[in-house]
């Protein structure tokens, strides 16, 4: 496409855990890219609307101008388009299927977490029960391993790590402590935070909590 910017551009938003998945993936693969901060609370840019007309959401990866949307799909694309860089997904077909399953499942952390800070009363209580189930399932899958697939940091760790700075806030809204209820998951979160690609991409929990307050105001929630 004549005139299209060459190379990789990531349309993203500073605190988006889905965008952070892509930043971690790009870092793990040692790929150069331009980070483009998008406006989400105000008007979306022409570029974002053109690149993701269906969902109008970040992250979007532009490769030589062509858009790839959805965080997990972007990660698959990076592996497939850049086969000479360290793979994010395992090679074995069964291991790949398991990795995809758990990475997709972890989207629920954000989905349920949003209900937790947005809703009140019975609906919030249901969100709390759902969050306990999701975190319990993730903790169960992790087990006593260092990382989800075993000894080494892999696809599922990459997919789940960006939600970890949100957990203290979710814990407050839901009345639970990740440290107390799922110590293995808490230890895993600290282990991931020690990894350079993750440390460089994630926001601290205080900033995330501040952001949730901004979102609450935006939604007209005053408590």
């Amino acid at each position: 496409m004549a005139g299209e910017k060459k190379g990789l551009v990531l349309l993203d938003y500073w605190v988006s855990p889905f965008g952070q998945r892509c930043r971690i993936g790009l870092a793990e693969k040692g790929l150069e890219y331009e980070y483009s901060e998008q406006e989400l609370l105000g008007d979306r840019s022409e570029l974002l609307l053109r690149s993701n007309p269906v969902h109008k959401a970040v992250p979007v990866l532009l490769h030589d101008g062509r858009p790839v949307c959805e965080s997990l799909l972007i990660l698959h694309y990076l592996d497939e388009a850049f086969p000479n860089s360290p793979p994010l997904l395992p090679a074995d077909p069964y291991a790949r299927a398991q990795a995809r399953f758990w990475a997709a499942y972890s989207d629920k952390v954000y989905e349920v977490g949003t209900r937790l800070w947005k809703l009140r009363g019975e609906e919030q209580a249901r969100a709390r029960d759902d969050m306990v189930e999701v975190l319990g399932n993730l903790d169960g899958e992790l087990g006593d391993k260092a990382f989800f697939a075993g000894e080494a940091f892999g696809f599922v760790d990459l997919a789940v790590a960006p939600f970890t700075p949100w957990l203290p806030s979710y814990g407050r809204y839901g009345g639970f402590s990740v440290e107390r209820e799922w110590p293995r998951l808490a230890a895993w979160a600290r282990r991931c935070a020690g990894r350079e690609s993750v440390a460089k991409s994630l926001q601290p929990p205080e900033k995330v909590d501040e952001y949730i307050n901004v979102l609450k105001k935006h939604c007209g929630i005053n408590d």
Partner: protein
Amino acid sequence: MAGGGGDGQLRLLGFWPSPFVHRVSLALRLKGLSYENVEEDLGNKSELLLASNPVHKKIPVLLHGGRPVCESMLIVEYLDDAFPGAGQAVLPADPYDRAAARFWAAYIDNKFFPALIKALMGTTEEEKAAATADTFVALETLEGALAERSGGEGFFAGDAPGFVDVALGGFVGWLSAWDKVTGVKLLDAGRTPLLAAWAERFASLDAAKSAIPDVDRIAEFAKALQARSAAAAAASD
């Protein structure tokens, strides 16, 4: 392992009306893979199902040499990965095309299907009407995707069915049955001509003829489901 699965290696835990199960049957047939069908009673789920999909407890589950793979489109991707020599690849080779195919399959799951189910099972007439409108919006979006992706050929993937065709193809029985159940014609050549033609073309594939149950059976099932849901809603008023 072309044609693999004949030694009892592949078992599909399913439920005959489920469009998600149909997707997997379609992919297995397109790839020429033999498998054993295990029909589940969703009101009384088997130990095998609960042990194979403890997180969601849902069908379809594919068991390959006893190891479970869950989620219909993940199963389809797995079949491509695990049986590279078998029949045609469901996903295309090019990374960008693969990303586009996965995107549209996700759209079908996250936008089309939720609207469709609410259009059938919504608790009020208003809810059902709004969901029906949403379903039409999703179909119109998919019409655009078909125009863009097919390159003028008959399927989302081009001249042969691929990932998105399977993702939406799982629903062809339901889409055909819909106006028998609700009186609403979802695939209307006036609104979405490409999609209406695609559905006919897809349904006439050998794989579809054997994987998709008879439309009248589906219509009967859908009517019963709708009636049960309406009764439950009325009972809770």
